């Protein structure tokens, strides 16, 4: 179909008229795109433009400065980049993403994918169902369940007490550790499902051939299986990273970003600045930085997926 539609345009060197009718047809064919374009431009591109513009103003939450914010140039960014809270938040975000998504969810997801193929069938079904439920549950429910699990009188401390260990105030003394473990619990299912599908596509002949050549199962996993599914690994790393950068509800319910700002990742800090301290312009600048950070990962991700768009 596509070649039929395009070929006259290319083969006719004198086709000014034809080109015009081609452009007209192209226009009429793309009309169904208009509603999508309007929604995307207003509600997706709009906030991004607002983020860039708003971060250059002193917008406040209410009152005069909310209705008529003043242009103040790069002042928000200057104070942002000289704010130690911002840099600690960047560090917290990076460690949250690195330990919970890149290490935690990916390694555990891969481990579960391998284990459920090796273990007994009933057990594997039960465990993967539990893992998937923790992912399908609404975010706020998962957050409450994990808050209860980690809270001072919660199940974790009760279990530690039962084996004779003292209880620890996880959410107060180790807030980042708690939210990182919580996010691993919450998001591992996605990686597990991706890796399950990827492993199913590795042709058994290849691993069998390697087995005949005398490799052991660990060698086969690292030297054959992993390189063969590297594209799935790369996409999954990007997707889990991008999902984790934006995490808000889980952290907000468990620690509220605290104690102090000890677990305020960038989305939490942006919310606090804008709605607790009424510095909308400042919060917007944080949002702009976060979205740029996410955009860099998104571009990397698209580079990996490029062959699919081109086809």
């Amino acid at each position: 179909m596509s070649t039929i539609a395009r070929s006259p345009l290319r083969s006719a060197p004198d086709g000014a008229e034809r080109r015009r009718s081609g452009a007209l047809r192209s226009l009429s064919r793309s009309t169904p795109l208009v509603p999508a374009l309007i929604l995307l431009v207003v509600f997706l591109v709009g906030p991004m433009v607002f983020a860039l513009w708003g971060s250059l103003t002193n917008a406040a939450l209410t009152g005069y400065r909310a209705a008529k914010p003043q242009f103040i140039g790069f002042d928000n960014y200057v104070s942002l980049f000289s704010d130690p809270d911002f840099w600690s938040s960047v560090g917290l975000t990076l460690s949250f993403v690195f330990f919970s998504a890149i290490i935690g969810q990916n390694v555990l997801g891969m481990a579960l994918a391998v284990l459920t193929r090796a273990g007994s069938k009933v057990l594997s079904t039960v465990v993967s169902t539990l893992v998937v439920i923790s992912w399908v549950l609404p975010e706020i429910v998962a957050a409450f369940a994990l808050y209860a699990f980690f809270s001072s009188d919660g199940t974790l401390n009760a279990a530690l007490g039962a084996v004779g260990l003292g209880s620890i105030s996880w959410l107060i003394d180790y807030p980042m550790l708690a939210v990182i473990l919580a996010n691993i619990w919450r998001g591992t299912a996605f990686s597990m499902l991706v890796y399950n599908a990827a492993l199913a596509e590795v042709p058994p002949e290849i691993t069998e051939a390697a087995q005949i050549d005398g490799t052991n199962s660990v060698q086969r996993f690292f030297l054959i299986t992993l390189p063969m599914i590297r594209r799935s690994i790369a996409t999954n790393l990007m997707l889990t990273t991008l999902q984790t950068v934006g995490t808000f509800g889980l952290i907000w319910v468990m620690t509220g970003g605290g104690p102090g700002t000890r677990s305020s990742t960038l989305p939490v800090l942006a919310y606090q600045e804008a709605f607790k301290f009424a510095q909308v312009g400042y919060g917007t600048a944080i949002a702009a930085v976060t979205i740029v950070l996410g955009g860099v990962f998104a571009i990397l991700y698209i580079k990996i997926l490029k062959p699919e768009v081109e086809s």
Partner: protein
Amino acid sequence: MSAAALSTLTVDSPVRNRGRWLANIILVALGVVFVVPIAWIVLSSINPAATVSMSIPTGATFDNFAQVLTFNQSFLPLWNSAIISFGTAALTVVVGILAAYPLSRFNMRFQRGFLYSVLFGSCLPITALMVPVYAMFVQLRLLDSLLGVVLFMAATSLPMAIWMLKNFMDSVPVSLEEAAWVDGASPMRALAQIVLPLMRPGIGVVFIFVFTQAWGNFFVPFVLLFSAEKMPASVAIFQFFGNHGAVAYGQLAAFAMVYSVPILVLYLLMQRLTGSSFALAGGVKG
């Protein structure tokens, strides 16, 4: 499944057996870790004296459910969740199908650029944008409006939906439509009468996918809505916890159950539609 699965890890049988046992032991340990937070919700919801720690209830009760299943506590928030999720999913699917059709069927000049933008939009961390969205909604006078929430959520789920729908549409052969075109049907008629019926499962998957995300979304309504009577269940449950949570864990758990069950049912339905547990992640891989 099992033949291919085993071959990734097999060696000669004694070692295989040992590996299998080791795998089972680790699986049991991981299963315990994953079940505890879920079990806390389930057990607390029927426990007359639930605490923040998990315990086996001495007797089962439905009092917690009876307490929360009132109009203001549960039905209104769940109704609001349903309106928001249904509106978002319906709008996303209709607009997404319209957009996916030319992208799938014609080769347009800006197509590649558009698809790249859609892909880019589908992986941005949108929650990071809530502060500018709030500022923008102040100007558009869309704050505290269910319509505003629906429009914003539809726009954020649209990139993924277009991407998934285009992939589903690509797998419907063009030859059927060409026959309809020859018979004089317009492209829109061919879409409605030939393509859509053939991709019903795909449409179902996208609808449920968007519905589930909207149902579970907390941050967007938390920022954009103020009135108690407009709050969806995700925000209502958070406010309930802030007000009585520390004393009423049983009710909190019961509310959480009522709020979560529809999502779990929809997920099962989606598994049926696609025939695999990969349903939600599947669309992502294209």
